[in-house]
């Protein structure tokens, strides 16, 4: 009941547009050709999800189990694409292909380009979840596997364990692609998101856009139900495991160089190649003065939006997890709903929030037209991702603890703050970080919701890139990436010190 209420509340901002979509006569009828766009989108999502799983799962396991040269740096760099809006990578790929010649452009145009770009952010997501899932194994389990069958058995066992969580991450990464029109527009691939964008921004037909979104969510829900039903039991069994002794990372001998090289190749494909395309204009010189002026103007806002979104998502997901408790049925229902919610374009929620702020009283403007509303919009968009992590984390809390506390008459507040919160803190930290990173790269929600004059850095890049000299755009990208990398390294070293 409570979980349903939270899920309902999360969708409230989208209701005005949904209403327009369902009221007869309000919207242009849905064209049959939208099915082609939907099919293309689902196809891209499936490719992205599967490839991200195949690459991200072993990569996450390797990071969790082994020491190898450049491990920490590789981890930080692999995460970097999460902070960068997809359209920037798409432009990088496109610029590089244009330099390489018509054959390269022909190869990258359409589905291939979209998949390549989306993999940039999908793989890190799976790597991160895989890493976290593998860390849930105990050191004793890993040592037992090693004694029984050597490193091969360890890798096999570790890859199998937590595969469901990684599979969910891959599914979520695939679903994230459904609401992003950028790469489809750049690579000339008609997708559901680009059709929704056309309805919004070319036809100004919010009703049609609403219907398209509803159909997209329905399709996702239909596809997600079997996945959720199949996975729920396995997910439950995995999350009941309790870590007793941390994994001790070892160097896998000659294999360490192989792992390092594999990570180097991964970084090359997901990041270095498109980055080279973005930075090509730097051969005409840097424009760091203007770039840093933009950074100074927008840095604090970017940080506020990212952290705020993280807090909103983490808080709501924690409440949802508490409401779900240990019920498998509820967990299945919530996971299915989360997958469907994730497919909704964030512009639906954002425009709904603009409508709400407009209809609300002016004395509430300090809240409804402030930076808080951007945090809320971003937080709601990434709520499904946070919920998956929260559900998993909550599941690791043994029911026996609750029973023991009840038997001994421990007050709930004391139990909650002394036992539950410390237990959930690492997962909440990961959620905060992950949502923060993803929210940093957002452009659409910030564009629609930010208070005048309170823009973010990715949005600033977005608004200057059309006609600014390429050297300025490239300088902005360099500044942004340096800052992002710096932030990641700091957070990573803090997290590393915390866990060791």
């Amino acid at each position, binding site marked *: 009941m409570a979980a349903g209420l939270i899920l309902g509340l999360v969708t409230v901002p989208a209701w005005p547009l949904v209403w327009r979509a369902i009221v007869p006569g309000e919207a242009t009828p849905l064209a049959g*050709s939208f099915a082609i766009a939907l099919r293309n989108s689902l196809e891209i999502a499936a490719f992205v999800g599967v490839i991200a799983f195949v690459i991200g799962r072993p990569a996450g396991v390797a990071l969790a189990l082994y020491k190898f040269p450049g491990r920490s740096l590789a981890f930080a760099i692999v995460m970097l694409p999460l902070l960068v809006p997809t359209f920037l990578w798409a432009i990088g790929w*496109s610029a590089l292909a*244009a330099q390489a010649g018509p054959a390269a452009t022909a190869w990258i145009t359409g589905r291939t380009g979209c998949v390549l770009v989306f993999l940039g952010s999908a793989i890190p997501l799976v790597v991160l979840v895989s890493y976290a899932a593998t860390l849930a194994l105990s050191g004793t389990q890993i040592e037992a596997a090693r004694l029984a069958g050597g490193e091969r058995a360890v890798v096999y066992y570790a890859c199998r364990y937590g595969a469901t969580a990684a599979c969910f991450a891959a599914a979520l990464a695939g679903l994230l692609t459904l609401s992003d029109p950028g790469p489809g*527009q750049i690579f000339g*691939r008609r997708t559901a998101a680009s059709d929704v964008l056309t309805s919004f921004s070319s036809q100004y037909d919010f009703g049609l856009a609403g219907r398209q979104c509803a159909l997209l969510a329905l399709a996702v829900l239909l596809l997600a139900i079997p996945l959720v039903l199949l996975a729920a039991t396995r997910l439950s069994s995995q999350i009941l495991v309790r870590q007793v002794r941390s994994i001790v990372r070892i160097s896998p001998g000659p294999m360490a160089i192989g792992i390092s090289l594999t990570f180097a190749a991964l970084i090359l494909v997901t990041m270095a190649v498109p980055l080279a395309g973005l930075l090509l204009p730097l051969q005409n010189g840097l424009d760091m003065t203007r770039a840093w002026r933009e950074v100074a103007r927008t840095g604090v806002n970017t940080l506020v939006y990212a*952290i705020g979104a993280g807090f909103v998502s983490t808080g709501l997901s924690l409440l949802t997890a508490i409401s779900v408790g240990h019920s498998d049925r509820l967990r299945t229902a919530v996971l299915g709903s989360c997958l469907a919610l994730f497919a909704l374009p964030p512009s639906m929620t954002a425009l709904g929030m603009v409508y709400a702020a407009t209809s609300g009283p002016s004395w509430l403007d300090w809240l409804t*037209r402030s930076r808080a509303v951007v945090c809320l919009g971003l937080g709601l968009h990434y709520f499904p991702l946070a919920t998956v992590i929260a559900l998993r984390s909550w599941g690791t809390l043994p029911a026996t603890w609750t029973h023991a506390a009840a038997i001994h008459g421990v007050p709930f507040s004391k139990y909650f703050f002394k036992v539950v919160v410390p237990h959930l803190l690492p997962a909440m930290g990961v959620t905060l970080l992950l949502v923060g990173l993803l929210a940093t790269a957002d452009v659409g929600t910030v564009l629609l919701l930010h208070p005048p004059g309170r823009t973010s850095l990715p949005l600033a890049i977005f608004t200057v890139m059309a006609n600014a000299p390429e050297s300025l755009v490239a300088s902005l990208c360099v500044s942004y990436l340096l800052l992002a990398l710096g932030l990641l390294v700091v957070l990573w070293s803090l997290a590393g010190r915390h866990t060791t």
Partner: protein
Amino acid sequence: MTANTAVRTTLWMLGAVLLSGCGARDKPAPESANNEVVVYTSVDDVFARPIAENFEKDTGIRVRLVPDTEETKSTGLLNRLIAEKERPQCDVFWSGDPIRAAILKAKGISTPYQSPEAAELPKLYSDPDGHWTGFSCRARVIIYNRDLVPRGQEPKSVLDLLDPRFKGKACLANPLFGTTSMHAAALFVKLGGDKATEFFDGFAANGGKILSSNGEVRRRVAAGEFAVGLTDTDDYNVAQLEGKPVGVVYPDADGMGTVVVPNCAVLIANGPNSDNGKRFIDYLLTPAVEEALAASEAAQMPVRKGVAVPPHVVALDQLKPMQVDYSALGGRLDELTKGFLKEWVDRNSR
């Protein structure tokens, strides 16, 4: 410091940033709470911001600028304006083209304002009812790669893009968005439905490609991937400043004329700072702004007579502008984006 303390300190610091910034709106303006103007603009930030900063210096009124872009990767500002209609935050919409201005008028979001500065501006580029006033212009041009198009072989008309010598070598931005959509509507008005349909179908049949934006057209023609493309004068100027091997043709000088795209100043109905909004519009329409926009990387053409035109900018009287009723283009485009153009783009996307 222990690891725990470090994590805790970081979290506190981040929390403090959040609390200090989240709920707070912008700092109050120096003189009074209303000494500001909120301007939404579809003009590129790099061109609009210096103008806004000059206005601030001249008047002491703080400008809160919300820029958008014609790049088609996000649900943009016009939607925000539509959603905010009942209680707008915005005072002025500075549009990069008259189409969006016409949409605002049609939706009842703008209000008429006859600026005293508009008296010397040509009426052709403004709304007869005063909902928007046109000033500095861009033009829709053909940009070509000088390494791929020999001298003397340049296309003279947009219809030349159907020539077999440009097979697979021509591009344009998605005609559902931005100035390309306005260009498409103008072609339908000028050529008539049948001929315009023939043009678009012929363009696709000749291997012409749809790109995501005018900026993309500029980049890919400059890189030599395409020989010719349709874009705006500011895109061409940026490519030229970057030393790219590009040339420009102002098409149809001997025929239907070149499509000219004026900037438009629109006063939003019931904006929170209407008086300041009017002052900002007055400022936008001054000769100084036309001069600044002409001298900038935007290389915009002044529409007012007597404004100095820098050497790198083609003066409007050297062109043959296409004669179209700008206020009628919005309605025509509305039909096209829900009909032929949408189908055409769908058909020709992979």
